[in-house]
């Protein structure tokens, strides 16, 4: 089955190709089901191909497809190892559910088939990214997911905000990609190849720690762009302009985790540089608490989730920075489950509320949408870290690993703990605002539960959110054993050993989660005047959070506006008047010379004749005088 693993990419790609050309001839749901079938088939292939890893003992194989750029050792090759298999399973599994959900969500959109074309293209790109056998192909997938993200954020292109958000996402990502690209230049110059196997096997012997730091930091720039870490996270909240299934699939479950995957994949390089590790972890922790604090005060249901995603990605960075790669990947997986569920639930709510996204105008939806409410409730508990739901196990493993690493990481552990408290608070706040209390809907809105095609994925994801964490509990480290072959070249960071320490640390984080949840419940399960008063008590902090610290504004004023002014100066004050002016000036010099010499040409033939004769006489005198 391993030789056929290219099918994992090829199926959604074929789906996208088919839908691109034939989609407009298909009736509405058919295009969606076809796309879902493509990615579902991909999931099946991946699952079957992953069986050897589950059985254990397999290290993974590289499947070579074709040469791409031989001069830099880049070819199309797939590395099928436990890490890529797990990523492929998450992408195709969660992806299939979101595809199905989207059939209901996108109902009635005039570009229905186009949406599924892009979704399938995205799936293929993401799979290319995770299955790549070398950095060049990873970069291929890396950029293609950016493209799909661009296309899907800007899917409703008539909305100027959506188009602007799409462009912003792509450009900010590109800034990060610049770092990745320079990192790849460095890697190629160092190793003479971009192939994983070639690099990782030699990294330990040939890579100096200075070079490893440089590469690691450059990779971090790329990862921070794609995974929305400080300071490049600003595109992700805006990306919520896209249709909600897009937010769920791309901006929560899969694409944004690519940065985590990149760091995990490059573990052998990060292994050699403590500086890079600490930087990654610090960036992660800073992002976690920064974004969580912003999420506290958001009113838009999707923006809360967006900042929550940024924050949770920070956790994953903290994990991989602490070399707890398994914990990072574990959290990546559980987060995919519950965040996708939250987004889909939010989508269900938005769908029911006629595209209303302001939580302050919701409330009391529990009775109207029980399935959505319950499943979202489960996800909320999961992300808040309440045992035994999925989020508890993965988050706890991250925090434990950071604690065990000690030193600076202890500080990061405390940051993580505080973030856990904030997470529980804003998630509970969201759930309470949306589903409890009095209805605060606008006139004419009649919420209703979503159709089966939308709720079924919710239920499946809810089940995964409940039990997904059980694959890697301290009692039974199934995931760790599964991933071990992929990380055999590096030393993995683990949480502290022993039941006592586990209970102590878990207790602390559960306590933080419960405290946050309880506070939010108490603060928000009241009349709107009361919680508005509660929010006012935090001014001016609350205002800063609500405006996301005004970072967009600052970027606009510090980078974008001066940049544009500089470009305008270059174009209109330098290029045209100075450079082109010099060229035209040279032309003018000759024109003036001509102007000066012009009167000689009187136009009178007799003048010319006289001058001609004079010239002849001069020549004759010269000849006679023996000049020649």
């Amino acid at each position, binding site marked *: 089955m391993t030789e056929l693993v290219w099918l994992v990419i090829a199926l959604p790609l074929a789906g996208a190709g088919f839908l691109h050309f034939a989609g407009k001839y298909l009736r509405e749901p058919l295009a969606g089901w076809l796309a879902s079938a493509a990615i579902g088939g991909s999931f099946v292939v991946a699952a079957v191909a992953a069986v050897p890893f589950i059985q254990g003992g397999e290290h993974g194989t590289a499947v070579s497809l074709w040469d791409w750029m031989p001069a830099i050792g880049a070819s199309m090759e797939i590395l099928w190892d436990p890490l890529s298999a797990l990523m492929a399973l998450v992408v195709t599994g969660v992806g299939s559910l979101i595809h199905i959900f989207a059939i209901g969500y996108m109902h009635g959109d005039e570009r229905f088939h186009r949406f599924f074309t892009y979704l399938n293209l995205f799936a293929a790109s993401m799979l290319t990214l995770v299955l790549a056998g070398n950095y*060049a192909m990873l970069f291929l997938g890396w950029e*293609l997911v950016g493209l799909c993200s661009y296309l899907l954020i800007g899917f409703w292109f008539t909305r100027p905000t959506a188009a602007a958000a799409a*462009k912003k996402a*792509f450009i900010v990502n*590109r800034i990060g990609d610049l770092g990745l690209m*320079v990192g790849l230049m460095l890697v190629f*110059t160092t190793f003479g190849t971009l192939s994983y196997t070639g690099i990782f096997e030699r990294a330990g012997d040939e890579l100096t720690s200075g070079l490893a730091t440089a590469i690691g930091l450059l990779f971090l720039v790329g990862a921070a762009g794609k995974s929305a870490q400080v300071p490049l996270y600003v595109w992700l909240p805006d990306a919520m302009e896209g249709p909600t299934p897009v937010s769920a699939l791309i901006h929560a479950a899969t694409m944004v985790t690519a940065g985590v995957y990149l760091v995990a994949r490059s573990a052998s390089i990060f292994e050699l540089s403590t500086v890079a590790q600490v930087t990654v972890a610090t960036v992660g922790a800073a992002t976690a608490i920064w974004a969580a604090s912003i999420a506290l005060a958001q009113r838009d249901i999707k923006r809360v989730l967006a900042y929550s995603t940024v924050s949770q990605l920070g956790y994953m960075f903290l994990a991989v920075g602490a070399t707890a790669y398994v914990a990072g990947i574990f959290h990546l997986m559980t987060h995919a489950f519950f965040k996708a569920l939250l987004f889909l639930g939010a989508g269900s709510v938005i769908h029911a509320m006629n595209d209303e996204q302001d939580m302050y105008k919701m409330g009391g939806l529990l009775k109207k949408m029980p399935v959505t409410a319950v499943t979202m409730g489960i996800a909320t508990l999961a992300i808040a870290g309440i045992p035994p739901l999925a989020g508890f196990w993965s988050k706890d493993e991250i925090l434990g690993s950071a604690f065990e690493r000690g030193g600076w990481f202890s500080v990061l552990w405390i940051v993580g703990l505080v973030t856990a408290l904030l997470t529980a608070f804003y998630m509970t706040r969201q759930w309470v605002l949306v589903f409890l209390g009095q209805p605060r809907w606008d006139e004419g809105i009649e919420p209703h539960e979503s159709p089966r095609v939308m709720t079924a994925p919710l239920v499946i994801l809810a089940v995964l959110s409940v039990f997904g964490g059980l694959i890697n509990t301290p009692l039974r480290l199934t995931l760790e054993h599964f991933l071990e072959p992929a990380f055999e070249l590096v030393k993995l960071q683990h949480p502290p050993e022993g039941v006592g320490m586990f209970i102590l640390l878990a207790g602390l984080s559960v306590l933080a989660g419960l405290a946050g949840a309880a506070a939010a419940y108490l603060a928000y399960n009241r009349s709107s005047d009361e919680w508005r008063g509660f929010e006012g008590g935090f001014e001016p902090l609350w205002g800063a959070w609500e405006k996301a610290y005004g970072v967009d504004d600052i970027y606009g004023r510090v980078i974008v506006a001066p940049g544009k002014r500089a470009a305008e100066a*270059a*174009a209109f004050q330098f290029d045209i008047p100075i450079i082109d002016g010099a060229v035209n000036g040279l032309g003018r010099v000759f024109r003036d010379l001509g102007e000066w010499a012009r009167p000689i040409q009187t136009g009178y033939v007799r003048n010319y004749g006289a001058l001609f004769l004079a010239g002849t006489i001069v020549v004759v005198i010269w000849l006679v005088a023996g000049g020649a």
Partner: protein
Amino acid sequence: MLTWLILLPVLAAIIVSLVPSRRSELHLSLGIALAVLPLALAGYVFWAFEPVSGYQFIEDVTWYAPWGIGWTLGIDGISLPMVVLTTLLVPIALGASTSIEKRRKEFVVYTLLLEAGMIGVFLALDLFIFFVFFEAILIPMYFIIGIWGSDRRVYAAVKFFIYTAFGSALMLAGIIALAFTHAEQFGSLSFALSDLMRLDLPIGAERWLFAAFALAFAIKVPLFPVHTWLPDAHTEAPTAGSVLLAGVLLKLGTYGLLRFNLSLFPEASVDAVWIMGILAVVGIVYGAVVAIVQPDLKRLVAYSSVSHLGFIVLGTFAFTSGAMQGAVIQNVNHGITTGALFLLVGMLYERRHTKLISEFGGIQKSMPVFAGFFLFMAFASIGLPGLNGFVGEFLVLIGAYATLPVLAVIAASGVVLAAIYLLWAYERVFTGVPEKPENQNLADLSTREVALLAPLAALVLVIGLYPNVLLDKIAPSAEAVLDHVVEASGLVIPEPGRLADVFVTDGEGE
């Protein structure tokens, strides 16, 4: 064989010119039909070309023995893709010219003559006939811009002509100097490239000659700061003119640098690495920055050419095999993507008679297919992996890093800037609600227009995913040029993978 490649367009031009002027409906279709013949022949040459170094299909006839001028033609992996690209773009450019009503016959004739000249430049292995073709191209292009251009066409045409002719005048002096040096050292005048490559030039003279050639080609490329004729020429030229200008004419500069400067003056080339590299990188960043704020779509694409061609020059002077191959394949890529972008802007212009970005908005609504093609080509131009632009730029950047790390890192920022100017332009032109009434009911692409764009789009994908169709044939020749430079100059090219501790300090970029 190769002579026929040059003669076929000339014959086609003669045939078209024999059709009476009043049968104007025949000229264009006949021109397109006849322009397919060189394409077929070029396709055969491409197919029959062996992927080894050295020239193939050589034709060598003494033309004027006392001066050592020969009708010497040959093709190698560097010129082969350019010839195929030229023959491909000409029928497409003609196909995009249906809106030309005025003096249509002359237009077709000039375009076909232009094709002959361009092919001649790429095939010539004798500096004399190279120069003749190099200059001959200016004439039809001058008329194409000057007769069928838009408002300031005469200004643009004159500027284009004088600017480029100025550069080549110096090159002519250089060529003559080389021929006489040959007479001095070997006893007879010769203009043959292979003869002149054997010359033993004193380094001072070599530098002067390098400068003369480099200036001519730099203007053609165009390299910062001699680029200002390009936006004017592009903006004023008709669609076909822009397509051929961007697609092929600019490549004469990069091709010339690669073929003549590196081969004839290897030592001076090595000495000039920093000058050329810095100019290239300044061009990359500067062209992109200036492109961001251009109000006119064609000017925007024109400045993007300045930026993209900087990559080619950087790759040429980086002296690693990756960068060299990247430079050659980027020649083709830029021709395809920028040519396609000019085609697209031209199609838009035919519908709205304006190219100003501010005049548009939301036209994706009425022209989804057009928007799709535009976005596709824009991303190819941005350098999205999987599309052709990436292959060239990535090879150049990765290759250049080994020898010019700082420049490569700065050049990489051009990739970000490309995304800014193209996507911002896309946003302003295509997205949002079409507010202007004339933007609301634009006709989407016709079958003819799709047929023009589809082959280019297909090539973008094929080269992006399987560049070996070209790289296989390019690599040996690029390697040969590199070997020649190394041999003549004693340059030591660092081998990737053996540098672990050399470049630590250069890794900053975050």
